C-alpha cells in the first residue's frame, strides 16, 4: 500500500485492518530499533514493539492528523520501554540474551573493525558502552531527543513534532542533553 501514514491511519480508523498491518510493516524496524536502545536486547525490544502497536490499535480513534505518526510511535516506544526497565529493576530480572557479561544488554558490533588494532577495538567498545550508559541516565525527553537526532538522523522539526515541542525548545532540550552527556563523558571528550 503506497499511502502515507495519515491516510493509512484514516482508513484504519474506518475499520480497514489491512491499513493497520501496512503501518506495522512500515514502522516495525524503527520501533524495535528505538526500543532496543532503551531495553538493550532484541527480544525485549520486540515485546515493547508488540505493546506499542497494540496501543496504536486500541488508541486509533485518538490519533489526529496534527500528530506526527512516527513521533507518536517514538514517544510511546520510549515510555513503554522505560516502564519495562523499571519493571525489571523491581523484579531484578535480566533477559536471557543479556546474561553474557561482556555484552550484557547490548546489541552492538563488538570486536575490531576493518584491520584496527585489537586493543583499539576493546577501547572502542568501552567508549560505546559508556556513551550508551550516559544516554540511558538522561531524563526520558533528553534521551529521546539525543537518540532521534544522532541515531535516527531526525531534524529539529521532526523531533519537535514527536515531542510536541517547537524548534527552539528542541534546541534547548538538546543543549541540556549534550551538557549532561558531556559531564558523564568528560574523560572521553578530552581525548584527541
Amino acid at each position, binding site marked *: 500500500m503506497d499511502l502515507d501514514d495519515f491516510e493509512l491511519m484514516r482508513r484504519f480508523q474506518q475499520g480497514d485492518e489491512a491499513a493497520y498491518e501496512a503501518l506495522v510493516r512500515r514502522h516495525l524496524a524503527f520501533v524495535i530499533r528505538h526500543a*532496543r536502545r532503551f531495553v538493550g536486547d532484541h527480544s525485549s525490544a520486540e515485546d515493547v514493539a508488540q505493546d506499542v502497536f497494540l496501543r496504536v490499535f486500541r488508541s486509533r480513534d485518538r490519533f489526529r492528523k496534527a500528530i506526527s505518526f512516527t513521533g507518536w510511535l517514538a514517544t510511546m516506544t520510549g515510555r513503554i520501554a522505560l516502564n519495562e526497565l523499571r519493571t525489571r529493576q523491581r523484579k531484578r530480572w535480566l533477559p536471557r540474551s543479556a546474561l553474557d557479561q561482556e555484552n550484557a544488554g547490548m546489541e552492538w558490533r563488538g570486536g575490531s573493525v576493518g584491520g584496527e588494532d585489537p586493543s583499539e577495538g576493546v577501547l572502542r567498545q568501552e567508549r560505546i558502552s559508556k556513551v550508551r550508559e550516559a544516554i540511558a541516565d538522561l531524563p*526520558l525527553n533528553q534521551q529521546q531527543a539525543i537518540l532521534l537526532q544522532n541515531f535516527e538522523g531526525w531534524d529539529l522539526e521532526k523531533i519537535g513534532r514527536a515531542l510536541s515541542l517547537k524548534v527552539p525548545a528542541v534546541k534547548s532540550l538538546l543543549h541540556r542533553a549534550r551538557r549532561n552527556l558531556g559531564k558523564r563523558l568528560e574523560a572521553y571528550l578530552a581525548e584527541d
Partner: protein
Amino acid sequence: MSDMNSKDQNLDRLLKEASAAEVPVTVDATRFLARLRSRPTSPRWVSALPRPLWLSAAALVPLALLLWAMAPWSTSVSLDAAILDELDLLELLSTLEPAEIATLDPDLIDFYADLEIVEELPVDLLGVSE
C-alpha cells in the same frame, strides 16, 4: 571557546561512533503480526470481567456521572492526560521535604514522567547546577 568547540566535536564523534556500532534490526514482520493478532485488543481487566457484571457496571456509569454532576462539590473537571500528569507530580512531590523541593534543579526535569528519575536521586544531587 575553542576548547568548548573541541569538546562539542568530540561528543559528536562519540555519538556517531555509537550510532555506527548499532546492529541493524532484522525482524520477520509476518511472524510479528501473527503474534500481535493473537493478543487481546482490549485491556485484560476488561475482558476478564464476566459479561453480566460488565453490563451491570456499564449501566451504572451514567447514573454515577449524573449523581457526581449534581453533587454540591462537583466541578467540571476533565480528567485528561495533563491533569493525570499533574496528580502524579503532586503525589511525587508530597514524598519530598519542602527544602528538597526548593532545591530541585529544573534541568533534571523535562516533563512529569521524568520525576520518577528524580525520586531515585540522592537528595544531595537534587540541587546540582553549573
